[in-house]
């Protein structure tokens, strides 16, 4: 009499996840390489730049300095709205020049820079000149609201010209 041997009981270990892990690892490496995390340029996120079709990307953001240019009346309105107050009237010398902020002189946060302070110090031009003297190929990125008036923007351009900036870049966004 032939003794029948029954098939041994097989216990499946579940779904084979090895290929899934391989693919997920590839995706992680992809995102780690292409993602840009923690690049602090000091850009003011409340600024809405104008839209343009034309424009080029800047690959080396390490060689750039971003100037945030805003209308002081708008800055005061935003401050008053956040504090639930009425906007305070600005003195003439504040109204006539833009509010410029940038990360300069080793700082980690953008700080205000006077185009022309009440004492006559042309701080923006002075700071830019110091930066350009250390790095003649510095690229200035001008980030300004789409509805700012040219009379405010030109003061920044003139400070850049005074500091002998060679490379200006106007930040815009794709439509």
């Amino acid at each position, binding site marked *: 009499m032939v003794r029948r041997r029954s098939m041994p009981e097989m216990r499946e270990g579940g779904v084979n996840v090895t290929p899934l892990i391989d693919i997920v690892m590839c995706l992680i490496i992809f995102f780690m390489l292409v993602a840009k995390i923690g690049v602090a340029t000091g850009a003011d996120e409340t600024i809405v730049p104008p839209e343009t079709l034309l424009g080029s*990307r800047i690959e080396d953001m390490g060689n750039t300095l971003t100037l945030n240019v805003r209308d002081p009346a708008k800055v005061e309105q935003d401050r008053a709205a956040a504090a639930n107050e009425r906007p305070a009237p600005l003195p003439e010398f504040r109204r006539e020049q833009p509010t410029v902020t940038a990360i300069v002189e080793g700082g980690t946060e953008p700080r205000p820079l006077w185009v022309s302070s009440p004492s006559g110090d042309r701080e923006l031009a002075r700071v830019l000149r110091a930066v350009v003297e250390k790095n003649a190929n510095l690229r200035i990125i001008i980030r300004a609201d789409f509805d*700012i008036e*040219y009379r405010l923007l*030109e003061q920044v351009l003139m400070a850049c010209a005074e500091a002998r900036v060679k490379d200006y*870049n106007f930040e*815009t966004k794709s439509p």
Partner: protein
Amino acid sequence: MKIKGAKQVHYDSGPNMTAMVDVVMVILVFLMLAGSFGGSWHYLTSNLPIKAKGGGGEVKPGEVQDVTLDVRIDPDPTYGFRVRCGDIATVGEAASLRNAFEQKLRAYSAIGTNPEKIQVVLSPGRSVKYQYVVEVYQQALLAEVAAPAGQDKPLKFTKVAFQASR
């Protein structure tokens, strides 16, 4: 008394990967959300400093000064802005702006002026909005005319500068 039969066969399925897959998925979702591909920002580049009123650029010895094409930009209550470029006037609209610049390119080409030696100098009024200045800037760079006989590159303006407001 329990008599044991054939030896039970045990298939080893290896370490349990479920926890690892969970952690890896969380890392993946984090990177997808936290990272960015550079966003939708791009830049209009200029290497010409702003010109003071009535001033010209520095000219090196032996170098021929660029021809300047003055473009006035004024505010307009209906269209936002109006542009005057010599004998050409247009109101704020991308197509008509580009046509105006292309007319100028043809005119310069007809007299043999190389567009690369032309500086388009934008002269906005004090109250003109930045977006309109940028629009004129962009249209000056987008204007393009077919290359004349003997040349392979189309004609385009390559130098755009700003002037202090009037």
